[in-house]
């Protein structure tokens, strides 16, 4: 029987929703939330992050097709 050669599963980009509501893709990871924030220029003290709708800590590892939302917390008032 003919077998198709195994093809690597393509990595998908992470989808990131930024505080200003802009969307962008990031590499497939894996990467810690803290490293991702640093790459994007955010201070972890000033934002919180959710992955696929659930809050995650800065040492959580994200990647592949995760949907990441970054929320800025410093508003005053």
């Amino acid at each position, binding site marked *: 029987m003919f077998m198709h050669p195994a093809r690597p599963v393509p990595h998908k980009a992470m989808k990131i929703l930024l505080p200003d509501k802009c969307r962008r893709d990031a590499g497939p*990871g*894996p990467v810690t939330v803290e490293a991702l924030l640093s790459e994007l220029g955010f*201070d*972890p*003290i*000033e934002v*919180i992050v*959710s*992955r*696929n709708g*659930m*809050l*995650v*800590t*800065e*040492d*959580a*590892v*994200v*990647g*592949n*097709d*995760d949907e990441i939302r970054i*929320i800025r*917390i*410093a*508003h*005053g*008032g």
Partner: protein
Amino acid sequence: MVHTAGHGITPRCDTCGEPAVYRERTTGRHFCKNHFIADVEGRVLETIRSRNLIAPGDHVAVALSGGKDSTALLVILSKVLPGVGPVRLTAITIDEGIAGYREDTVRSADTLVARYALPHLTVSFPDLFGGTLDAFLAGREPEACSVCGILRRKALTVAAERAGATKLATGHNLDDEAQSVFMNVLRGDLPRLVRDSGSDSQGRFIPRIKPLMFVSEKEIAVYLMLHGMWADLPECPYAVHALRGEVRRMLATLESRHPGTMLNLMKSKAKIEAQCGGLLEDEAVHRCRECGDPCSGEICQLCTLKKTLR
């Protein structure tokens, strides 16, 4: 403890092993939703008890702007105060008249108060001072926070008095308090630096209390998010002019690189307060010769400011 789920790795709560939603940076401790909420509420209750901020029979006016800090304050007080004893709560809201900003937060405050079925009293700058903050600040925007601070302090006092409150609670958090310590050092303002953080009335007004003073801004945001009460509200348009904004960014960077910086600032303040607070507390209290309010000079800040408002 970590757990691999799907494509990522989710650290786990150090107490129960559920997925962690928050990591305390100083200790590295992880919290799940339930243990995080219990930790925040426990810390607020401990602050109230250890500093005698609220006693059974008190009527607490909660300064509710509708922003995140005051929203969290109202929610947390509603939950923890039954542990203190019979205490009444009344929400008070100040509408300064800041176009494009305050409308949203006032709406948010109205919704919250309706949800908790609390008495709600709103006073506005036009009612009290004859004009909006926007009108007062035309051409003097860089002074926004000092002008607003003086007017707002008076408005809160008036609202708390109208409510018949015995305490006035504000949503100042750990970040706010650490920023204030730093700003008072930068300004060389020792009397203000050593003023009691938890209750700064010095017996002259309805005592002001800050039950969230040991809860960080980030913890407040996470707390609201976990309660489905996070609202992406606009930032005050005048915030860009404030020294506080620069100090906030500086301290956030320091806290990020050196976890515990903000708490250490508070500890430093407490030590200075313990050493020399008594030397400055007896500063003479006068009555403003124009309005009769307590003040440190002959004319209070509000009457001095009013002369310059158009």
